[in-house]
């Protein structure tokens, strides 16, 4: 019985930690996948303002700079 109770308590203690870890992992994967996609995309320059600025200088076009929170 004690073992059973301990197991239940452990489950309660560990569950929130796992849940927080899951959220962290989801966010990490979302950011890394987002970066991977945009790195393959010729249309956007990801996290490199100077590269985008030089491109704008070369082409004479204006820049659209986007700031986003972690997905």
């Amino acid at each position: 019985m004690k073992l059973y109770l301990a197991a239940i308590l452990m489950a309660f203690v560990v569950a929130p930690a796992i849940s927080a870890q899951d959220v962290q992992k989801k966010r990490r994967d979302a950011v890394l996948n987002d970066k991977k996609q945009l790195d393959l995309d010729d249309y956007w320059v990801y996290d490199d303002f100077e590269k985008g600025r030089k491109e704008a200088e070369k082409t004479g076009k204006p820049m659209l700079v986007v700031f986003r929170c972690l997905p």
Partner: protein
Amino acid sequence: MLDLTLFQFDFDLSFAMFFMNADKTIYGRYGTRSSIEDAESHMSLDGLVAALEGALTLHKGYPDNQGVLTGKQAAPTKYKTPNDFPSLRGKFGYELDYGERVVQSCLHCHQMIEAERLVYRNEKKPIPEKLLYPHPLPQTIGLRMDVDTRATVKAVLPNSEADGAGIEPGDVLVALDDQAILSVADIQWALHNAPNSGVISATVERGNSYLKLEIKLDTLWRKKNDISWRVTSWDLRRMGTGGLVFEPVTTIQKTQFGIPSDKLALRVKYVGLYGAHSVAKRAGVKLGDVLVACNEKDDHWTTTQLLGYLTTKHKPGDLVPMEFLRNGQRIRVQIRQQ
């Protein structure tokens, strides 16, 4: 690392855009929020397209149009990067770590507002109004904008600053404080940098003519900017209320409680549980209590007004008496300011 000498925007946002020249001149900003639940009520794809078209027009006219762009550039700041704020120093690297710890390596924008407020708070100085009520929404001066357009006025609140200036529904706001306006975010930027009291100009297109109007701002205008929805108000709640989140009490409920309609009544909808956010809990405040007096004042305050009062009129360490209504009884507690 974010260059704060260049990129300044509403740091409570989770999405913001800049339209720029390659020489780093800012043509405009896009991205506005006024609640947690409805994050997109001030934005639309049509509005973004209109703002982008406006930016292209400014780009074509550049640099002859520099006069209407000067005010749109970043304001002078002593903090050149987030790492320059004393409370953030050394906590984050200059680059994101695109590995396992990418989430932890990312500084949240709202942390910069909190860090700048802390500079004043730790020196026991009042937080400046511009920092306390950042990026005022157009409705702060009585303007409601059509979010599907660049800057067309949808409605004007009677007896507001905009009404006093003579702005009318249907007007297109071409410039505010001599800055070209492309979006609601641009209006907010102009208002953010407007004086705490004084006059700013507004140029509107009405029919086939352009009118230059004057908007008079009195000493109370900025305090009407609702900050209760902002993530950064979480830390103001710690400082002033000891971790309490309030919701308004309706006039009907006030009558039931025996509180006059023009008097203070804010119901506690959340009590902070841990650390510095649990000061009110430890002082005895409970969920559902109704705040009816703060430092003997019982003016009809909103959460914004309460937080503004506490963080400008009191210093860390002050004990502020607060009175709550609970089951018909009045309960008095002292909340230590942080």
